[in-house]
């Protein structure tokens, strides 16, 4: 049996790599990919806790279904926004998209 801690450490590592991607990338699409990785790490945590703390309760699996739904919606709207911004401003570099900067 795999210890629960292994799953949690893997999820933490994936989350932190995704966080680095979100903070460090210049391209807005790379930023979205980092967010997807962080959501995936959360899914691993949900499933691991269900399997080890409350097996057969299906709480984790149901939440993962909703999490994947929200991730898909976020990706679709995010990519549409990026394409719209690219069309109007000819860039997807996040530091150039500063229309709302005071």
């Amino acid at each position, binding site marked *: 049996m795999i210890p629960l801690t292994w799953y949690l450490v893997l999820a933490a590592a994936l989350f932190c790599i995704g966080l680095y991607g979100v*903070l460090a990338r210049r391209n807005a699409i790379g930023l979205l990919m980092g967010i997807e990785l962080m959501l995936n790490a959360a899914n691993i945590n949900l499933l691991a806790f269900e399997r080890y703390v409350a097996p*057969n309760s299906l709480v984790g699996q149901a939440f*993962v*279904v909703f999490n994947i*739904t929200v991730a898909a919606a976020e990706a679709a709207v995010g990519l*549409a926004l990026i394409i719209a911004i690219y069309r109007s401003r000819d860039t*997807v570099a996040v530091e150039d998209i500063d229309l709302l900067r005071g």
Partner: protein
Amino acid sequence: MSLTQIVFIILAGLALLGAVGMVALRNLVHTVLSMVLAFLAVAGVFVLLDAGFLAMVQILIYVGALAILILFAIMLTRDMMDRKAHVNAAQWPLALVVAAALFALLGVLLVGASWPTVTAAISGDQVVALGEALVGPYALPFEAASVLLLAALIGAIVIAREARA
């Protein structure tokens, strides 16, 4: 060390490799391929957690749909990223420090914590049980999720559509 532990270590290594490639590679198409590797490995981890249905959903949605969607977005916005341009923002060393510090903190906390784990075998068909749970106790969030998906679908079309003059 048992066989499942070895499989887990291989899958975790592949997931981390894909994730690191995703944030470190310069070519955006290569980062998407690296992301696909990470998501496939995560699907394998789902199988180890006895969530076979979600592993298939993971492959269908992330590897199938999302990777293609992101590739299309990259192709539509391609010419802005020339090969000499920096792929990382100026604050990337600070981002590395923040991410590493968060991982160190989480690692210490997770390794030190003790969880009230129970070892029970999975009983019955998980897919049937999940399907019944989604129309039973989780019916309301399920409907909310479908409304959210519809709203996102319409919103994405409206936002990305070319404005007619």
